[in-house]
């Protein structure tokens, strides 16, 4: 039943869900109505999430529970970690929507595109607020379904092939996830997420079964979180339009996988209990392999979006790595990176989209001198890139700092080596494009800017805004309600002092 406070998570889902359904039925030419609805819903969602953050910090509880089937409930509940993910998604949804309106101007099927786009965001919100495993699985699979039409949006042979790869990976992962979750339920009953884990009391006797289930769950969530060797779908899915890549890589899909790993480790098993089953060291090793592997592959890519995609493979595993290291500081690093990586990566994808849309540039080798023609875009790109490398005071530094400290605290000194290697590799694949753009002379004459701005404002403003956010999230990390602040709140709940 819905308590009074339960309306909040429900309406946070409903803002995008209802708008998505309405948009499906809008005729193609009614773009004013569609844009208004989109922007209005996105703003409303941000306001509602802000209310939830404020209320939660004040100690309010928001929970909506519906009878689902037998002893299972559908449960939406606001907790600290859900707010981190929801806050990220709601802000980036607004910016990506503005970007997408500009990007898709005059292209066909916009009602379909924005309809599924809204459903994706709704599913993401559902994943964020899911209070138990069955609700999580429900929205996780909904996300798979709703993303497919976006990947194949262009309808080209290449897009359809990418969509096929995407479905093979994610449906395979989804099936395994279902088996794992059902299995867990048969030994532990209905599982509601609880900070610090719930399994130690519920099912500590079946340690071997719990180990296998953990492997199944992480393996299936690892598909979306792009853990090596399950990452294959991600670079291929790059054929999607730029706003979709931004959504896939920064907000919805990959984060859903990483967020799921956070939930399983910290809210189902509990990191101490998982560690006592010897599950976390293998996870840390897989994450480390992924970090290095992704960076190495990124080095070799000339296509900008593919380079960014492999960079995502690598960066996402920072989250997994932080989850796999026991201790509050590493947890803070993981959680804050969930937000930071999102903001920085979306910036980079916006910039890549701007280059492609304005100048037709798709490859790193074509970037020579492009900063003279598109200074704002390249400034944003530079901020995002430097942040990924982990230079202070940009957001990425905060994540890496906490990860490193956490690793030292847990006596995982080898993790420092991984972090250093990865930072060097990040520099190796982000500095060349940045250098080329600012300091080399252009090889070709670029077409002149259409107006006073270097490209449409709807493409420029989101990129500039997220770049600014990446900077501020790092520079003002100590301010209340910053991502770091909320991440520390989560760590306090997960590791009670």
């Amino acid at each position: 039943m819905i308590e009074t406070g339960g309306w909040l998570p429900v309406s946070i889902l409903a803002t995008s869900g209802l708008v998505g359904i309405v948009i499906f039925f809008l005729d193609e030419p009614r773009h004013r109505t569609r844009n208004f609805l989109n922007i209005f819903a996105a703003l409303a969602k941000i306001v509602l999430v802000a209310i939830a953050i404020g209320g939660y910090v004040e100690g309010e509880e928001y929970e909506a529970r519906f009878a689902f089937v037998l002893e299972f409930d559908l449960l939406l509940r606001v907790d600290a970690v859900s707010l981190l993910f929801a806050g990220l998604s709601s802000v980036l949804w607004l910016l990506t929507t503005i970007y997408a309106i500009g990007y898709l101007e005059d292209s066909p099927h916009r009602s379909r595109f924005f309809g599924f786009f809204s459903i994706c965001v709704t599913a993401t919100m559902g994943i964020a607020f899911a209070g138990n495993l069955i609700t999580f699985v429900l929205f996780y699979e909904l996300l798979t379904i709703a993303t497919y039409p976006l990947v194949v949006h262009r309808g080209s042979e290449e897009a359809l092939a990418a969509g096929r790869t995407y479905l093979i990976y994610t449906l395979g992962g989804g099936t395994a996830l279902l088996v794992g979750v059902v299995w867990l339920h048969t030994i532990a009953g209905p599982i509601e997420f609880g900070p610090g884990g719930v399994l130690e009391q519920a099912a500590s006797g079946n340690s071997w079964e719990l180990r296998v289930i953990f492997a199944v769950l992480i393996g299936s969530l690892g598909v979306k979180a792009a853990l090596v060797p399950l990452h294959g779908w991600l670079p291929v899915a790059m054929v999607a339009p730029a706003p979709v890549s931004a959504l896939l890589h920064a907000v919805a899909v990959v984060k859903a996988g990483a967020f799921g790993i956070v939930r399983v480790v910290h809210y189902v098993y509990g990191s101490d209990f998982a560690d006592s089953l010897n599950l976390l060291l293998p996870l840390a090793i897989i994450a480390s392999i992924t970090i290095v592997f992704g960076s190495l592959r990124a080095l070799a890519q000339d296509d900008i979006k593919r380079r960014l995609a492999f960079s995502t493979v690598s960066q996402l595993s920072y989250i997994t790595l932080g989850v796999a290291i026991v201790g509050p500081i590493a947890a803070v690093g993981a959680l804050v990176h969930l937000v930071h990586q999102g903001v920085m990566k979306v910036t980079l994808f916006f910039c890549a989209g701007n280059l492609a849309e304005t100048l037709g540039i798709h490859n790193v080798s074509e970037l020579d001198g492009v900063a003279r023609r598109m200074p704002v875009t390249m400034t944003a790109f530079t901020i995002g890139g430097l942040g990924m490398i982990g230079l202070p005071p940009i957001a990425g530094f905060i994540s890496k700092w906490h990860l490193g400290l956490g690793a030292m605290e847990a006596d995982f000194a080898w993790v420092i080596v991984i972090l250093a290697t990865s930072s060097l590799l990040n520099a190796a694949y982000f500095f060349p494009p940045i250098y080329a753009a600012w300091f080399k002379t252009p090889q070709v004459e670029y077409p002149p800017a259409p107006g006073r701005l270097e490209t449409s404002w709807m493409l420029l403003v989101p990129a500039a805004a997220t770049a600014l956010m990446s900077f501020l999230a790092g520079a003002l990390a100590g301010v209340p309600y910053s991502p770091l602040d909320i991440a520390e709140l989560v760590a306090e709940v997960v590791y009670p002092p």
Partner: protein
Amino acid sequence: MSSPFEWLIFLPFAGGVITFLLPGKSRPWLALLLTVGTFAAAWWLASDVWREGPQGYALGGWEAPLGINLYADGLSALLLLTTSAVMTLASFYSLGYFSREAEASSWTEARAFVPLWLFLLGSLNALFVSRDLFNLYVALELLTIAGVALVALAGGATALRAGMRYLLAAFLASLLYLMGVALLYGEFGVLDLALIAEAAEGGTRAPVIALAFVFLGLGIKAALFPFHAWLPHAHASAPAPVSAVLSALVVKAAFYVILRLWVDVFADSVTAPAAQAAGALGAAGILWGSFQALREQRLKLVVAHSTVAQVGYLFLLFPLLTGVGEGAWRFDAWAGGVYHMMSHAFAKGALFLAAGTILYAYGNDQISAMRGLTRTLPITTVSFGIAGIALVGLPPSGSFIAKWMLLTATIESAQWWWAVVIGAGTLLSGAYVYRLVSAAFTPDTLPESIRPVPRVMEYASLILALTSLGLGLRAAEPFDLLEVGAPFSMIVAGVGT
């Protein structure tokens, strides 16, 4: 007439006779009125069952063994509701399908269609409330005759050949069933299911040969692998609303009889090896049907082969009912199977109606001809997509819940190999649904002219598809109803059960 039982049987049968005498124009409307009326009667019966428990009714006031006893528990009530709901929507659809704008030939089809349609509805209703072996035989026989005639209605060599194969298979099946019933009557001296069950509990064993005949006959009618060969062409060449109810309901009716006899009557006589064998045939059906669905080039044949696969899932519940010890999983297996029947009925109904719409508009149903469907028939595409989700068993669909429960039962009864089958079936169905959906997303030069489709056809399939989705969002009430008079109790699984 003061009992819903009377209305359920009287309305369609009387309607069948009356419409036969009426002028052709008014027939479809009367058919629609009567299906709606039947739905109301089913609702009445279901609410009686819900409030007061299983309902019995002695036809003409004569109790068994002299008279005919009708009976409805939660299972019957749910299937009656499903039947009348699917047939009501299919009747709406047929208003458009056989509309006056259609060619003259289909108008004559429509004249014969309505009386047969109502006979089919009446025999389904009679079957679901029958409580003795001979009445079940009569209902099955009526069902076959109406079904075969409806298939042949499409005319043309293909339909007639398919209809003839269907007729021969179904008559062979009836003969086997009748022989089995005769042997059982020889052993027990009664036909009433409750009386036989009593005798069986008292120690009288049913002869193995009799059970073999009965289940073999019913297995043929339910298209259990390897007795399914009659199904694909019969279902694929019938007129669209007929295909829909044959796949959605008629096949399920035969399965319902198997379920009743196996679980309620001969539970002590059937052996564990027999249960494993039934499961193995079901599994073979899942794999075989899915592979065929992957290979077919015609839409309706894909959908028909998928029925063979989906029926396979139902037979998995028999081995899952065995197993050592006590546990709630028997209810999970049984109810999961029944819920799969329902969800699949709505989804398959929607798919066949949508396929019929495409055939109606494009003039053929080659999958390659579905290109550009998102533009020409958006509502039909949506129905296709949603019904596809239900076929694969993704959330939020009723089939997801069914799969969840079947999986729970496989793990709790320690028969993990069936979980592998369910997983493989999910991925295979994902593959053939993907074929259809990706074809719809492929843009193409539009066909020069498509026949305008009456709106009612598109919406009828959409509502059916949405119902299969609704079953996944709100399963609490259907399961409460299903529990009324259920052979297994739903023990709320505590920790470690």
